């Protein structure tokens, strides 16, 4: 019994695999341990201490994300000591910046003054841009804490909006380090790191320049990794709240990697794209997949069939256009034979549509003159 790979997790015997952390074993067995800084696929840093658990025999609480499971370990994930510690941690984080969602109390002095101050910095009357989509807010609700006991730390940074895709607001940064890990260990772009300017720690792009001028390739991995409102998408800020959108899983339409996307849709419009946590991309995307969706609802889209008359296109109804195409193709087939015609199908359309296109060429026109432009 002793040597078997089993831990006692909240009183229940739980098997673990060699090399698994307490967090891994718990997650695989559907026991929830909250985390903030832990990022799947990257090395654990143990920076936030939200994931602490009580391990019998250990002098202090241990971080579940960076403590390996060992045979016979007795682990409690929500004991009074654990809960007390998490509350304190969350409280400090809430007090550390412009966390002006409803869970945050005042700054120990005056709630209204605090709100007005933050709103002035944000240049909006709306609450935090990620209200409803924030790990810190979620945890604060879960553990019923607010930051009232501490004065707000007044290290404040101006919001950085110089690059076309990402807004960086370090007044909301909780220094969890996930963005740097996402950039360096997942995408391996090495554009940002934990650095410091003067006395304060801060996430910096190459030598603390604004993101637009550094190594950054705007994959947005850091934004997706940020658990709070410190990194947000420029096009998304204050445009919608998470509960207003419907999410649709689909496949990226740019390159052949075939990343899995989650399209966020509001009022028949795509308002945001995130990487889905499944193969082949496991949450990652590139700049095209994440930010290149404006073409979908673009005003230049074709909305009606067009027929050319005297060298100019005019709008037409479907029946007229389809009948014209059918008539013309039938005439040419009759006069010059099937092999006087060709179909170019496409690497952009679906399998089903390609199938129908080549069947159309072969069975309807009667020719094998069918190809696509991928060799180009």
């Amino acid at each position, binding site marked *: 019994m002793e040597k078997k790979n089993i831990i006692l997790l909240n009183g229940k015997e739980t098997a673990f695999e060699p090399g698994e952390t307490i967090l891994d074993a718990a997650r695989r067995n559907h026991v929830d341990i909250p985390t903030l800084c832990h990022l799947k696929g990257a090395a654990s840093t143990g920076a936030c201490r939200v994931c602490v658990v009580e391990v019998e025999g250990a002098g202090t609480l241990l971080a579940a994300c960076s403590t390996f499971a060992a045979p016979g370990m007795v682990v409690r994930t929500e004991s009074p000591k654990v809960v007390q510690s998490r509350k304190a941690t969350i409280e400090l984080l809430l007090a550390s910046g412009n966390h002006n969602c409803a869970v945050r109390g005042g700054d120990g002095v005056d709630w209204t003054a605090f709100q007005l101050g933050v709103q002035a910095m944000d240049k909006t009357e709306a609450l935090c841009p990620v209200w409803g989509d924030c790990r810190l807010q979620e945890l604060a609700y879960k553990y019923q804490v607010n930051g009232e006991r501490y004065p707000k730390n007044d290290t404040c940074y101006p919001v950085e909006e110089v690059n*076309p895709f990402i807004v960086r607001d370090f007044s909301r940064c909780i220094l969890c380090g996930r963005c740097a890990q996402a950039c360096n*260990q*997942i*995408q*391996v772009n090495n554009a940002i790191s934990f650095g410091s300017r003067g006395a304060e720690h801060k996430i910096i792009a190459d030598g603390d320049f604004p993101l637009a001028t550094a190594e950054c*390739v705007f*994959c947005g991995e850091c934004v997706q990794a940020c658990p709070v409102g410190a990194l947000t998408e420029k096009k998304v800020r204050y445009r919608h709240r998470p509960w207003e959108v419907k999410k*649709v899983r*689909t*496949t990226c*339409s740019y390159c*052949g*990697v*075939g990343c899995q996307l989650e399209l966020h*849709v509001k009022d*028949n419009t*795509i308002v945001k794209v995130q990487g889905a946590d499944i*193969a082949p991309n496991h949450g990652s995307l*590139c*700049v*095209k997949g994440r930010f*290149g969706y404006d*073409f*979908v*609802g*673009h005003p230049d*889209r*074709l909305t009606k069939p*067009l027929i*050319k008359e005297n060298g100019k296109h005019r709008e037409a109804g*479907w029946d007229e256009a389809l009948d014209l*195409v*059918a008539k*013309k*193709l*039938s005439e*040419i087939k009759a006069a010059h034979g099937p*092999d*006087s*015609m*060709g179909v*170019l199908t496409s690497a*952009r*359309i*679906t*399998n089903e*549509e*390609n*199938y*129908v*296109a080549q069947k159309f060429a*072969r*069975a*309807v026109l009667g020719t*094998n003159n069918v*190809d*696509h*432009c991928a*060799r*180009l």
Partner: protein
Amino acid sequence: MTNPIEDIHASEVILITGSNTTENHPVLSAYVKRAVEFKGAKLIVVDPRKITMTKHAALWLRPKLGTDVAWINGFLHVILKEKLHAEKYCAERTVGLEEVAELVKKYTPEYVEEISGIPAADLVAAARMYASAPAASILYCMGITQHACGTDNVKSLANLAMLCGNLGVRGGGVNPLRGQNNVQGACDMGGLPNVYTGYQPVSKEDVRKKFEEAWGRPLSPNNGLTVTQMFPLAHEKKIKALYIVGENPMVSDPDLTHAKHCLEALDFLVVQDIFLTETAKLADVVLPSACFAEKDGTFSNTERKVQRVRKAVTPPGEAKDDWWILAQVATRMGYAMDYAGPEQIMEEIGRVTPSYCGINFSRIEREGIHWPCPNTDHPGTPCLHVDKFTCGLGVFHAIEWTPPAETPDAEYPLYLTTGRVLYQYHTGTMTMKSEGLNEKAPECFVEVAQADAERLGVADGEKVRVASRRGEITARAKVGGMVEAGTVFLPFHFAEAAANTLTNTALDPVSKIPEFKVCAVRMEKAA
């Protein structure tokens, strides 16, 4: 790809050639970077341009344009001479090694250096590194295929992988990276002149019979024409009508001026697309279609994985699904196509296509399946050729190097090569609708080596005129170390300075792919 994307993490050596992976397949490039930086894999990059991947490479070889067969033969030479090859694997699973061994005798590192400019010692080191790995993966892209000898290049890479026993093993493989999202699917579905779905030849009697029965029409036994053959025939008035779905050859075709004449010579041109592209402007009838976010269906990615596409929003105005439009025309021409929707079409695909037989929408609801998947109990095939080659024995091909179709001379003294940039995609019809992407890559540029720039008196950011035997364009010079002296690079996304005004239409005799990657140009400062 012979191997799944996730396999890259299991490779000990990765050889990338003719692929600017970080720009064109960014998420896949992250697999490579992670393997190198955190899992101890070694990276060999063989590329004329100083692409970002070279930063992660243990070895970077910089061949002259169009010398791929030569350096690959050089690898084979070194590996055979030093007996680093997988002898047992070659003996049991392949044929044709003797001829190859004979041919590559003359491709000594010194001879290869003469042709390719790769220092002999570097070639030897790279060949040893590749051969030393229990599992080595080769990744390649258009830089290998878009040559008059593209088919030879690909076969040569297969020789190399087979020689070291790297096909059919985890972390190995010869892995083409498909540029456009559903190239794989378009080919799988028979969007090719010589095969039906699943690469079943149109010239094979029993295959044709099967399709004639399934479709209820007599079918032509003759191979059809490729796009690169159809265009000139249109010019000669032998092709009278073209029906183009979702493509923009007026930016992507080689020698654009000629392409325009070809399309204008047609009696009837139908274009079905989401925007009024350069090609659609020439059409007699333009049919508005729905884009990926507006329809249901599947794409097959570069690793042969069939994944769902789902409708998230409704198409604008009266735009319709591409399959619906085609089915309507078919029906109006007297051939009834009354599909209820994509799911039903996929069922028909499965009935006529052995490799897609086990794939249906309910099985891929959560995650896609890699074909071949012969029945609905089959889990799919992420890795090809595991115990034996799909077609029996692996065949080696003895291939001689031949120079590119067009080489520099007194009048056109520079090599031109073309490619893509991260922030734009193909002909730009989609990416150029995004302000952010345009801000990052607003206009065409030409990469020039410092030495050439000095000789021509051109400074970084100045406008230059680039001319070939086929046409000329103007673009801003980007002076730096990306290309070697004697070579310039142009991205091909930009219609107003279309690189393909310059490129050569010389075709690979087998694949009919044009030689986009090499042609001769001259450059001067624009007035």
